């Protein structure tokens, strides 16, 4: 049976290089299902990624795809969107790519409210290079560069996005596939900077090092730790430990950058040129 979303993949580039049990494939599939749901044209949609495990996704997806340099997906995507605002531009990034080496670009993408849909595959680790700590590795967890447990405080990328000016911020997990897809659909609906953090399990480079069991065990952890936003807001502070909210975390109306620039062109007298 052909599944309807298969046309969004470059069959000749599959199978993917991700490890067995990796959550990246689930997040990638959620993106194409969101694209399908929204009815976006493959000719008119560009997938931009950085460097790392997550960012290999662009190569498997049958669109115009751009595998940029480490941390730089958002500036490239900004250029694409401004040069041709008709294009739907989706960015796939990872926790290291987006919040470490690309942190400043992430902040300023949010600030400009440039119309991008940014999906961060958060596996809490640098997977591609064998398990070094990222800014989203939880406190106390081990990594090859944090062999005694990480003492670096962790970024909450969703709160960072909100504070920096993103107009849509959501989180979901690889366990909550339908929910994740829905979060991405709503991100695509928003004309502005949309940020979706997709928690994904990395059983190989992160789970094994931290004795977190199999991929299934890690997904079960996600199921137990994730709390829907509405419930989270009512949760007592002492019950929040080891848990995190999922759902639409923040939303506001705001003029996107390309539209704002149209007014600049108008003022400068460059309309219709």
């Amino acid at each position, binding site marked *: 049976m052909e599944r309807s979303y298969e046309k969004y993949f470059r069959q000749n580039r599959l199978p993917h290089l991700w490890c067995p049990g990796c959550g990246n494939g689930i997040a990638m599939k959620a993106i194409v299902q969101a694209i399908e749901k929204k009815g976006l044209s493959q000719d008119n949609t560009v997938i931009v990624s950085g460097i790392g495990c997550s960012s290999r996704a662009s190569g498997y997806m049958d669109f115009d795809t751009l595998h940029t340099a480490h941390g730089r997906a958002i500036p*490239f995507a*900004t*250029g694409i969107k401004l040069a*041709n605002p008709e294009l739907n531009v989706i960015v796939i990034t990872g926790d290291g790519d987006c919040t470490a080496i690309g942190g400043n670009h992430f902040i*300023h993408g949010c600030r400009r409210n440039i119309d991008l849909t940014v999906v961060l595959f958060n596996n809490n680790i640098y997977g591609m290079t064998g398990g070094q700590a990222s800014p989203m590795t939880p406190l106390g967890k081990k990594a090859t560069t944090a062999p005694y447990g990480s003492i670096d405080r962790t970024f909450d990328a969703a709160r960072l996005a909100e504070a920096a000016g993103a107009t849509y911020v959501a989180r979901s997990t690889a366990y909550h596939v339908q929910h994740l897809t829905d979060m991405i659909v709503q991100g695509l609906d928003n004309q502005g900077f949309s940020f979706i953090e997709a928690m994904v399990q990395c059983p190989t480079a992160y789970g094994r090092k931290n004795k977190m069991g199999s991929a299934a065990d890690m997904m079960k952890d996600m199921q137990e730790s994730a709390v829907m936003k509405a419930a989270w807001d009512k949760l007592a502070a002492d019950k929040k430990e080891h848990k995190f909210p999922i759902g639409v975390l923040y939303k506001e109306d705001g003029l996107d950058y390309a539209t704002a620039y149209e007014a600049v062109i108008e003022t400068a007298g460059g309309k219709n040129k």
Partner: protein
Amino acid sequence: MTEARLMQGNEACAEGAIAAGVSFFGGYPITPSTEIAEGMAKMLPAIGGKFVQMEDEIASMGVVLGASLAGKKALTASSGPGISLKQELIGYAACAEIPVVIVNVQRVGPSTGQPTAPSQGDVMQARWGTHGDHPMIALSPWSVREAYDAAVMAVNYSERFRTPVILLMDEIIGHLREKVVLPEAKDIKIYPRRKPACSRAEGYQPYTPDKDLVPNVANFGEGYHIHVTGLIHDETGFPVGSPKITEEAIDRLHQKIEIARDEITHTEEYFMDDAEYAVIAFGGTARTAYEAVKNARAKGQKVGMVRLMTIWPFADKIVKALAAKVKGILVAELNYGQLVHEVERAVAGKCDVQLCAKYNMEIFEPQEIESGIDKLCAGGKD
């Protein structure tokens, strides 16, 4: 011909780029290049183009590469520290073959150096600033009018060869105002964006080289579903971990420029007819060298000047031929000595090569280069 006007080098560079079809600029302000960004911020929206001030120089490179991939001719400009930051994605543009022009209005370095003072210290950075094996085209204008022409040329070369081109200005020309008469728009030759020769259904591969070894990569949004990466890739655009493909890919990147080398190596000769000695200079320094050579001629010294407008690829052939003709060459450059090494390499011992260097924030005075000429004519003795 248009009306004569007083124009600044940076201003001419911005207008030249627009004349060549640039409709997108991404940048970050930095002295002494800022007038280019300011000019673009004002002029681009007035022609329906776009200007964006990015958070840093890395992002500035990223945004122009994105815009170029989406079909717009794109420019960025910076200086010293900013150019250092841009190196990562200059390499990306070389590898992924994305047309883009980077203006470097050189100032004194290293590091923050002397922000407002002229220098020509980025000659080697222009060639080797980013990691790995890659070709580079760099042009260095010596007048405000030539800053305009070089901007047009840089944009055209970036499109024709699908490669990053560095417009290696210096503060002397960047901030100089002088009388210029610009060409009429109709007289400016523009190299258009290369187009795919066939459709997807006909088996289009984005990185299949054309006869001139340059691929006709489709723009994003044209329905080709191409993949672009900074990993070494084959004709499909997808990464391949093969020694053979890696070697072929790096060969082609170099060869596409190499086979056009003579055509893009622009030099000019002055007072060279019966010259027994020559001064080699470029950019703003060449103006002072010209004055020095003219004065030396008045004193009866048989000296001429060869001016390099194309810095990279280096004018090997021309310098080699020069070495066979003259007894000695003086390289005048506003740095500790960079281009002189290339000259020595090309000369290969066939004649005397001497350096006239200056790196103290000030431009050369003609007398300083004249002293260098005196020494050269005396066979290296004071």
